[in-house]
Each structure stands twice: as structure tokens, then as C-alpha cells.
């Protein structure tokens, strides 16, 4: 049976899958509201990696012995699982395993970007991008003479698409977050892709926040590249994926050089391997790939539509409860609750610095992230140096939000 949205997510039961949720901090149960930074891992992910190491660890694509073949099969099987999860047409060929979404974006810029962008070509980004989708482009612009352009935000924190067609003039690639890690904004990707393709531009989606939180199908959305990280979707750290259309990967030069990414090497030249191995130099994170596959299996068992429905409902509850109990004392950034708003709650408490907010919340066992969230240009647009950010995962419930608000009230009292 395909899990639909008809039955709600059984949060009480799924919380038992996450060992870290049993921890207490300062004598209080852990309230984990930092999933946008890194998510927690359920037992099936942890045990899949342990079982891999205990039963068949070996290097991949090298040995002929049984366990080496098993390890290779697990690694390549993980590629297929991860590819299917995002709707890849040819998952065994279109997924490149990388360190994280950051490396996936660097791969696109350094390989596809450097080979295809000429001086005068334009790249369209947005003001709400994470540094991972800004700095690689700035680095390329420094040496290649490309022009970087930005879509602005409206007062609600949505992308202003009024000038989209004009902004796309001369643009070869649009690269944008499919969900903001600061505002929770979910831009209308399908609409942007259609306009970009009509203008002859490709679209790179930074899916680090989107892929873990709602159904994401690369074919349905029409994107050309998608970057995402395992650790933000209940998998291990140290692995992420780049999905790209097979014809694009075929056309791209290698990124990192080394073992495993070659077809032949002479002392004066080399011939690269076919994708995806062309982009995977050196021994890859094998156990992490196994964990990544277990994470997408776990998320499929929850049902991504149900995950989204639960998180959207909880986001609406949180936005309402914060407004009701903290009123003008707390400014919440990002669009109002709705279909284009994800479970990221960046807030500014009056007269209390985010660092101090997070410190007081820690005493309540509440984990939030203070700081600029690797989006300094966006902080300038919002007119702040930092925010305190609470972010929601499938294991969060209304009690977590109530504890967050209790801590925010205490922080307000302490500094008043």
C-alpha cells in the first residue's frame, strides 16, 4: 500500500525509532528543533551501516572476492534507491555520490559551469541562497568574467518573480534553493523551470532542505541538476548526491581526479570513466551510501506526502502559537503558513540576541541554531546580523513547540 495523506503520520510511534530523542539535557527531554542543520538518525539507518561493516565491508569496484562483490552491490544498490527517491529516469546512471550538497553544487559549477559559461554569460541566483549556492559561483565569476544576477524577495520573503522574464535575458543557468534554509520559502520551481527553459537556461536546484521535507520528483519539476545531503534526511554525515540528467553528465568533464574515475591513464594523458564514476574519485563513502539508502527507505515508509502534511500542520501551529503568546516581542521571518512555506522558523526576539536566545533554550533541552545560517546576504536583506532558527522534522510535535515558546518567554523575561 502506498502511504498517502489519508492517515496522518504516527509521530508518537516514529519517535521511538530515534535513539537520540531518549536523551535528556539539563534534566529535561531533548527537544530537537535543528533538523535544517542536521537531522537525527533512526535505528534502521544506524543498524544498516553497522550490519554492512559487520558482514561485507570491502572496497568497491576493485576486488573479485565475495564480500567485495557484495559491498559493490550494496553501494550501487544505494545509488539506485537514492535516484528513485527523487524520481530519476535512470537512477543507476544519474546519481553521483558526493560529500554533501555543497560538494554537489561545487561539482556543477566547476565542471559544467567552467566548461560551458563564457565571459558575458549570466547566472541567475536569488537573495535567499545558502553560501553553498553563492560562493562557488562567486569563485567562478572571479576568474571567468560571468555575470551574477539575483532574484529579490518581497516583504513576505517570497521570490519576486514579476521581472523573471527580463531577468532571464542572457542567462545560461538558474541556480536556486528549492526551500530556503532561513525563511522556509518554497519557490514555485515548476514555473521558474518553464520560464528558464523557454529562455534557453538550465536549472540547478539546491534541494538540501526540500528533498527531506516534501515529495520531490526531478522529472515532474523539470530541473536539470539537483543537489542534496543525506544527513539532512536522517542519513549519515559525509555523503550527499548530485542528480543530473544523463545527457548532461555525459557532456561534463571530471571534477576531482584520482582512482576510480578513469578509463585509462598514461604518463601524459588520461581517459575518464563514464558517469557516474567519472565524478567519484577515490574510495567513496560506502557505509554512508548504505545508510543513505536506508534513510530513503525509511522516509518512503513514512510517506513523503504524510511527512509534508504533518510538518505543514505543525508549522502552522507554531506560527500561530508564537504570534499568540509572544506577540510583538517576537518577529518571525518568512511567508505565512501555507503550501509555499516549509518548517523553518527564523525568529528575532526583541532585545535578546539570537545567541542568548539559543543559550537559554538549551537549558530547556531545546536545540535551535543561532547565527546567519550561511546566508549572510539574506541577513542583510532582512536587516539583522543573525536569527535564532527552530526547524521541524517528522519527529517533532506540538509539545516541542510549546517547550520552545516556554523557553522564548523565559529568555524575554531574563533580558527585559
Amino acid at each position: 500500500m502506498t502511504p498517502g495523506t489519508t492517515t496522518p503520520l504516527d509521530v508518537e510511534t516514529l519517535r521511538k525509532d530515534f535513539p537520540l530523542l531518549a536523551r535528556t539535557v539539563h534534566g529535561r527531554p531533548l527537544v530537537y528543533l535543528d533538523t535544517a542543520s542536521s537531522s537525527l538518525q533512526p535505528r534502521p539507518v544506524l543498524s544498516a551501516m553497522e550490519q554492512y561493516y559487520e558482514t561485507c565491508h570491502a572496497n568497491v569496484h576493485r576486488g573479485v572476492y565475495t564480500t567485495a562483490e557484495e559491498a559493490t552491490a550494496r553501494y550501487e544498490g544505494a545509488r539506485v534507491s537514492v535516484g528513485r527517491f527523487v524520481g530519476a529516469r535512470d537512477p543507476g546512471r544519474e546519481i553521483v555520490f558526493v560529500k554533501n550538497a555543497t560538494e554537489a553544487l561545487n561539482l556543477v559549477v566547476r565542471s559544467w559551469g567552467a566548461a560551458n559559461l563564457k565571459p558575458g554569460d549570466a547566472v541567475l541566483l536569488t537573495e535567499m541562497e545558502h553560501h553553498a549556492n553563492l560562493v562557488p559561483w562567486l569563485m567562478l565569476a572571479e576568474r571567468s568574467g560571468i555575470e551574477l544576477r539575483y532574484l529579490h524577495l518581497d516583504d513576505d520573503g517570497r521570490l519576486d518573480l514579476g521581472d523573471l522574464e527580463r531577468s532571464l535575458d542572457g542567462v545560461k543557468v538558474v541556480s536556486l534553493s528549492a526551500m530556503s534554509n532561513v525563511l522556509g520559502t518554497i519557490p514555485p520551481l515548476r514555473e521558474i523551470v518553464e520560464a528558464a527553459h523557454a529562455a534557453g537556461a538550465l536549472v540547478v536546484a539546491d534541494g538540501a532542505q526540500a528533498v527531506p521535507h516534501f515529495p520531490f520528483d526531478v522529472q515532474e519539476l523539470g530541473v536539470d541538476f539537483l543537489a542534496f545531503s543525506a544527513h539532512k534526511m536522517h542519513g549519515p554525515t559525509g555523503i550527499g548526491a548530485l542528480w543530473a540528467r544523463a545527457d548532461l553528465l555525459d557532456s561534463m568533464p571530471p571534477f576531482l581526479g584520482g582512482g576510480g574515475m578513469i578509463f585509462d591513464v598514461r604518463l601524459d594523458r588520461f581517459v575518464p570513466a563514464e558517469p557516474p564514476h567519472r565524478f567519484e574519485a577515490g574510495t567513496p563513502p560506502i557505509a554512508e551510501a548504505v545508510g543513505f539508502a536506508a534513510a530513503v527507505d525509511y522516509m518512503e515508509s513514512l510517506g513523503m506526502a504524510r511527512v509534508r502534511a504533518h510538518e505543514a500542520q505543525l508549522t502552522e501551529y507554531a506560527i500561530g502559537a508564537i504570534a499568540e503568546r509572544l506577540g510583538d516581542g517576537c518577529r518571525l521571518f518568512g511567508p505565512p503558513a501555507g503550501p509555499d512555506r516549509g518548517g523553518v522558523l527564523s525568529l528575532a526576539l526583541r532585545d535578546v540576541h539570537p545567541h542568548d536566545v539559543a543559550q537559554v533554550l538549551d537549558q530547556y533541552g531545546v536545540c535551535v541554531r543561532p547565527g546567519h545560517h550561511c546566508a549572510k546576504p539574506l541577513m542583510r536583506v532582512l536587516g539583522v546580523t543573525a536569527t535564532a532558527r527552530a526547524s521541524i522534522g517528522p519527529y517533532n510535535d506540538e509539545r516541542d513547540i510549546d517547550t520552545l515558546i516556554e523557553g522564548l518567554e523565559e529568555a524575554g523575561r531574563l533580558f527585559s
Partner: protein
Amino acid sequence: MTDLEDLYREIILDHYRSPRNRGELESPPAVRVEGFNPLCGDEVVVSLLVEDGRVADIKFAGAGCSISQSSASLMSSAVKGKSLDEVHELIRTFKAMMSIHEASLGAEGAEGAEETGTGDLLVDVRRIGELAALQGVVKFPVRIKCATLSWNALAQGLAEVEAGS
């Protein structure tokens, strides 16, 4: 006293709510140094005016958390009017206090005793007056950078003054 009360002592909250020596001095003659904590975005600008071997005036500006702002305010109050030798000594003492390893702070250590230290490095907190209120920060290692931000700017300003004289 809970850890949180130890961190946010009344003196710290007072300096945060009513900062002393806030602002900037005309530069030159004052030396102006910017301190920046890239992790949390805290910024501090220290203006330092040295005349006849003494800190004739000092002001700080910028934005940041209660620890970075109160530490800057406490620092400015502590060094204003002091000789450069005395300021160097205060910087040394403050940095020693901030480098005390968490493990060396027993349950009563930071609260009861007036002397605390890492063995070879003893800090006599009686000699630093109100600055001792920042002792609680060492229990929160990620906040130490907040507390030392303005002190590092001060040390850099002193170095510039001394290099120029």
C-alpha cells in the same frame, strides 16, 4: 546558582542593558580596530586613544550578544585611565581566565573560590574587579569567543599604538 545564572550574572545583564563607553572616537588621533566573529556575526569596533602612556579614552560600538557587548563594556571601564603596562596585565589576566579548562572548574570551583586556575596558571580574580563576573563564560566553551572579541580588538589596537610610537 544554575549554570545559566552563572553565565548571565546581574553585572553582565546590567552592562548589556546600559553599556558604558558606547560610541566611537575621532580617528585619528584615536586608533580604530574592528573585531569580527564570523561564526555568529558579532561585530565590535574599539576606538582607543592613548596619551602619555595611558588610555586617555576608549569607546566601543557594534552589535552582538549579551556576552560580547557586556564584555566590551566591562573592558572599556576596566582599562580607561590605566597605564599601558596595567592594560597589558589586564589583558593577560582576562585571557588566562578565559582559557581555564572546563574540567578544572569543580562544582564549587568558579563560584566559591577566589583563586582558580589550570595548575601553572593562576588567576587572582580579586584583582580584576567586575571583570570576574565573566568567569561563568568558561563553562560555555562556544561563548568564549564572544567574551574575548573586544579584548582581541583592544590588544590589536595597543599593538598598533606601540608600533606607531
